């Protein structure tokens, strides 16, 4: 107990925002807390040696491998001090060795960048989704997605700026189904008080940190009175501790209707797993599509970055037409997480300049650029900034 409060007081000095909650586990986003001296918390040390970070890279399926190779290319070109440990996961195998190796690698390095691992419908139901296994094993409880309208992208609605925080480990994705009577399947949706409090806490903390004014909880508590009712109750409890932030709630079907007619009304949204999946896809569609939005999965000790809408993009794989924006922006989020802010901003600005000023767009945005042309343009802009770069 004494050691615990010593860590809390250390964290309060280092980072006043995170240290404010007594009795909660100290929140660590990846490797930010410096208390590796305190062994009782078992915070893994950062995978950093000689000033270079090691990050796990999981290529995944579909467009994952090619997009991640572009990330590696841009990083190498910009002399980013990150080395990638590549771990392949074969989605066609039933054995869990591959995904276990990937999870171990992420535990070792603390941070990962991944493409989506395909979950084939043809595999037996006992075979769990690899992506889901990864998220639950590492307890990456918060999925964060920031949807912003980009000036260079034509969309029906403008001025969208929504942060979506989705509970990432339970809910409808608990993979608990049974068929006690043939032809009658029961599927369990799990909502726990602790996970709901945790995600609500995360949402409000993030809202405060980013200076956002309003948090909206999305639910269906009128039908799922106990499940979503509990979630909503937990959100309300947490909200009472943040009087500076407005809290309201909205039923999920009304939410989707509001999103497609007046998306500007939303600020920060927090919700259980399935609604998060639906709402994030709607928002991704609103700002221009799956090729644009990066996503991050945060846990207490680990962070995994990927595209927000998690699709394998099989139909566009291998044709050099996929949009590299989402994956590149995800890699910038990762650099921010590693505190390599200069590199993050350098690459991010180059990506956004290509998108908004040069307006070199791939096919999904109605343009004619190939993936490699867009990446080349990004690297040219990086080079023009005068920082140290390798040869193209």
């Amino acid at each position, binding site marked *: 107990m004494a050691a615990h409060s010593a860590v809390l007081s250390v964290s309060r000095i280092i980072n006043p925002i995170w240290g404010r909650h007594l009795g909660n586990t100290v929140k660590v986003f990846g490797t930010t807390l410096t208390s590796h001296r305190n062994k009782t918390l078992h915070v893994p040390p950062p995978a950093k040696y000689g000033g270079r970070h090691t990050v796990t890279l999981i290529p995944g399926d579909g467009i994952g491998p090619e997009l991640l190779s572009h990330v590696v290319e841009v990083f190498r070109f910009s002399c980013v001090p990150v080395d990638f440990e590549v771990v392949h996961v074969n989605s066609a195998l039933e054995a869990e060795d591959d995904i276990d190796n990937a999870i171990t690698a992420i535990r070792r390095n603390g941070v990962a960048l991944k493409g989506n691992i395909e979950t084939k419908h043809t595999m037996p139901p006992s075979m769990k989704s690899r992506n889901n296994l990864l998220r639950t094993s590492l307890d990456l409880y918060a999925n964060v997605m920031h949807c912003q309208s980009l000036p260079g992208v034509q969309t029906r609605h403008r001025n969208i700026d929504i942060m979506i925080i989705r509970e990432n480990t339970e809910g409808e994705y608990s993979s608990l189904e049974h068929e006690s009577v043939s032809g009658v399947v029961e599927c369990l949706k799990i909502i726990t008080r602790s996970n709901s409090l945790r995600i609500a806490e995360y949402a409000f903390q993030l809202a405060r940190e980013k200076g956002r004014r309003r948090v909206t909880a999305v639910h269906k508590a009128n039908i799922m009175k106990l499940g979503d009712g509990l979630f909503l109750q937990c959100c309300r409890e947490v909200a009472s501790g943040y009087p500076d932030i407005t809290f309201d709630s909205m039923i999920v079907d009304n939410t*989707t209707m509001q999103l497609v007619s007046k998306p500007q009304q939303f600020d920060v949204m927090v919700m259980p797993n399935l609604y998060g999946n639906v709402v*994030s896809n*709607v928002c991704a569609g609103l700002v221009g599509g799956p090729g644009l939005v990066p996503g991050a999965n945060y846990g207490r000790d680990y962070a995994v970055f990927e595209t927000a809408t998690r699709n394998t993009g099989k139909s566009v794989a291998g044709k050099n037409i996929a949009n590299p924006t989402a994956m590149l922006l995800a890699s910038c989020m990762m650099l921010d997480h590693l505190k390599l802010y200069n590199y993050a901003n350098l690459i991010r600005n180059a990506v956004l300049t290509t998108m908004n000023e040069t307006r070199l767009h791939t096919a999904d945005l109605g343009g004619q650029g190939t993936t490699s042309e867009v990446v080349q343009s990004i690297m040219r802009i990086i080079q023009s900034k005068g920082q140290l770069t390798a040869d193209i």
Partner: protein
Amino acid sequence: PAGALRSTPSSTPGTTRGMVQDPTQFDVLVMPNLYGDILSDLCAGLIGGLGVTPSGNIGANGVAIFESVHGTAPDIAGLDLANPTALLLSGVMMLRHMGLHQYAAKIQTACFDTIKEKKVLTKDLGGNSKCSEFTTEICRRVQDLA
């Protein structure tokens, strides 16, 4: 003909995204309860909202209840301001269900033409006509179509 039908399974999130980006790619969608709840409201938002969205609940042996999906709107009840389109089109669905296709087609055409012409519209559609005026206009068109 049944042979011309094509069915494609599509995940809910992919569908919602596709719906936002290009809803014209979809024709008929069938799904379980919760997804239907979400998607039907999403689509209602795409076509102009709850004031214009009809629905029907079909059971066995032809038993069916047709209803608009909007609520009771107590704030405008009794003031001759409401948009009757949703309930009217639900009525049209009912007529089709009963096999009264000609009547259904006539009323639907009259209703759509009235909205298209934009001269007599209720407040939620951007006009300032009363509910009764809107209805009278539709009735006039129905008579002209007879």
